[in-house]
């Protein structure tokens, strides 16, 4: 459509034309004209948060659980700076966001006006791209371009900074059809010769492994389907990063669990001993590789990524394939089938036999306790109670996050939302609100820690206002658990500032906001408490009091290789823990 309208109308019209039905935001002086337009329409529902960071994470949760672009609307100055953490988070985890920020009028830019900040300057390094709109004439193009850039290629956050005079000015609006970009053309289709080479390397593998990541999920449900087809076709073992959980079902027989620092022994050993590694939409993060000079030392490596800059960034690979995971895997399956060849069944049988031996190590085992709720047990019970239900899980950041990755099981993609790259405490609860907004009839549980939940606890008010019945399950150990664990490992168990004193009464807190509060500290009452949480129709805080000093194992200590893990049964005496990391490892993050 093409017609005259104000800049503020254009913003709302462009959102409608892009198929947006929910936006997350907080009003302020520099976005009042846009909020006035929101007031006068009913197609787009605005979720009013209590802090702009919450709006950003909610939009991330919405985006990750739907595969659509999440939209944030905030005002200038502090509105924009408060959204920065969420933008950086979305950039690290490749989440498509469009964040519209108000700006002081063009004539005041640069004068230190009230609530002015250099939004485009501040957000430049934490967005995929950003725009400062200088005239209403370029606003429609920029808005549509923002969606194109956010969702195509490797997805990411895009900021559109709209000065207040541009919102008031009148100009000609045009719709999103024929939006192309002069310079931005991500490579979606891969070089077929490279895919053929990859298939050849895979067919000849004796000890293959598929190492998959968030790129598979970003590529979409179809890509996840083709991944499953590839695993079925090859019979190769598959592991995944934190970001990629759910792309392959946890119940699948080829599934080895998550890899990396807190991954399973079998996944890490298989990575270390493999002869052909196929990295699909992952980026060799330091939490994954451990010690680089001993990372999968006898392997040929194939890396599939839509972002050319990821190939050979951390680990030199033998074959880099630039393209969209879904397309590449489709080509791969087709070429494999057409070749008429099969994997080396005999070698594969030996390889699986070896993996079965590693599995027997039972690396996630922990010492059960009848008096105190073990955090792992709490999550096992939650997982059990959720089986067969329509549920989504978000997490905050810390020990509870790693335990959730280890013990929660995902059969489908888009069901698991966690802050991977940036590791943002306070992510999970607002993200859960975004998920619940998109899936009002599903169960959404934020698995939280007592530290993280307090970073965006104010959003309880949002949950109540918008009737978003999110369940917060706090694994409350009265510590910043992961910080405490690292202090035990690295700093002589001197617990500097990792004990959270003056813990609020979470039941009263829930009550104050109008949510339901539940507390439980006994293993034999846990099931009833989880049932009560899941059965309640509104938002719940479940204060699950767990063992205070439990450590998250297994673990690849900093500076160690995949075959050098620390297990919970080995780490029961303090000296073993204190000496697990050498001096070089202590310097790493």
């Amino acid at each position: 459509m093409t017609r005259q309208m104000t800049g503020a109308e254009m913003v709302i019209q462009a959102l409608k034309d892009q198929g947006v039905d929910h936006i997350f935001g907080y009003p302020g002086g520099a976005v009042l004209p846009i909020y006035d337009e929101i007031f006068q329409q009913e197609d787009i529902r605005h979720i009013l948060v209590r802090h702009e960071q919450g709006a950003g994470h909610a939009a991330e949760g919405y985006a990750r659980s739907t595969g659509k672009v999440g939209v944030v609307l905030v005002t200038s100055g502090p509105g924009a700076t408060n959204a920065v953490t969420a933008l950086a988070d979305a950039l690290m985890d490749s989440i498509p966001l469009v964040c519209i920020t108000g700006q002081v009028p063009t004539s005041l830019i640069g004068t230190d006006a009230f609530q002015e900040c250099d939004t485009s300057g501040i957000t430049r390094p934490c967005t995929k791209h950003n725009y400062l709109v200088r005239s209403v004439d370029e606003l429609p193009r920029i808005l549509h371009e923002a969606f194109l850039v956010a969702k195509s290629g490797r997805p990411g956050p895009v900021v559109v900074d709209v000065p207040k005079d541009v919102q008031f000015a009148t100009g000609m609006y045009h719709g999103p059809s024929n939006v192309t970009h002069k310079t931005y053309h991500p490579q979606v289709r891969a070089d077929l010769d490279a895919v053929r080479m990859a298939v050849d390397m895979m067919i000849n593998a004796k000890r293959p492994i598929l190492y998959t990541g968030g790129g598979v999920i970003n590529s979409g449900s179809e890509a996840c389907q083709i991944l499953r087809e590839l695993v079925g076709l090859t019979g190769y073992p598959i592991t995944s990063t934190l970001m990629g959980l759910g792309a392959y079902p946890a119940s699948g027989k080829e599934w080895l669990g998550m890899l990396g620092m807190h991954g399973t022994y079998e996944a890490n050993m298989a990575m270390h001993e493999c002869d052909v590694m196929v990295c699909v939409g992952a980026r060799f993060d330091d939490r994954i590789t451990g010690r680089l000079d001993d990372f999968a030392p006898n392997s040929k490596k194939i890396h599939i990524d839509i972002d050319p800059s990821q190939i050979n960034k951390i680990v030199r690979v033998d074959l880099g394939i630039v393209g969209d995971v879904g397309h590449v895997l489709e080509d791969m399956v087709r070429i494999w089938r057409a070749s008429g060849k099969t994997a080396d069944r005999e070698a594969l049988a030996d390889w699986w036999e070896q993996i079965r031996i590693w599995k027997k190590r039972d690396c996630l085992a922990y010492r059960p306790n009848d008096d105190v709720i073990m955090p792992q047990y709490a999550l096992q019970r939650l997982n059990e109670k959720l089986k067969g239900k329509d549920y989504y899980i978000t997490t905050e950041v810390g020990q509870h996050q790693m335990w959730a990755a280890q013990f929660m099981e995902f059969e489908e993609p888009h069901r698991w939302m966690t802050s991977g790259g940036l590791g943002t405490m306070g992510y999970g609860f607002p993200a859960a609100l975004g998920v619940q907004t998109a899936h009002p009839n599903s169960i959404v549980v934020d698995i939280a820690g007592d530290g993280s939940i307090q970073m965006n606890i104010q959003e309880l008010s949002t949950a109540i206002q918008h009737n978003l019945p999110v369940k917060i399950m706090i694994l409350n150990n009265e510590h910043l658990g992961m910080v405490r664990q690292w202090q035990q490992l690295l700093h002589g168990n001197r617990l500097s500032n990792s004990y959270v004193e003056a813990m609020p009464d979470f039941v009263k807190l829930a009550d104050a906001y109008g949510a339901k509060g539940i507390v439980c500290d006994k293993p034999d009452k846990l099931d009833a408490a989880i049932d009560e949480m899941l059965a309640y129709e509104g938002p719940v805080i479940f204060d699950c009091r767990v063992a205070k000093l439990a450590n998250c194992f297994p673990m690849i200590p900093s500076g160690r290789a995949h075959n050098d893990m620390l297990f919970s049964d080995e780490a029961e005496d303090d000296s073993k823990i204190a000496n697990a990391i050498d001096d070089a490892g202590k310097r790493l993050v």
Partner: protein
Amino acid sequence: MQQGSAYFIEEVSSVQETHTLSILVDNEPGVLARVIGLFSGRGYNIDSLTVSETSHEDHISRITIVTTATPQVLQQIRAQLGRLVPVHEVADLSTFDIPPLERELALIKVVGAGDKRVEALRLAEAFRATVIDATTDHFVFEITGRQTKIEQFINILQPLGLVEVCRTGVVALRRGREKT
């Protein structure tokens, strides 16, 4: 240093190389900040930087950056630059068979009298620098050439009353009839 695989396609080298990159970008506000921010944010070196609009109709600017890094980092720099949305093209001029044409312009102010002044003027002639401003006790020379020549000229003028230097940074094009 890093030994990730037993089957490296390329040898890993830790030797630093100096390369000249030519980057065509949309001349939109903030584009230079994006490029520079990428270098500072990821810890890459900038030895020299020049930028100017080279096609007014299309609003395209050419940014020329001289950088020093290992081959692995150079590959990252090219890929990271290519990822910026307003970037049309990234060419590493130092990867062609023959080195690129590189020129820099410098303005150099020399103050003094007597023998030193005469010597400065004589050297300027030898280096084909031109006098673009003068009084009885100063010269401003303009010199164009490769960076080594300009460095040399500046060094020689040091004891002859050199007071101020301004340099443009390197501009470069690929040799031959092919486009960059």
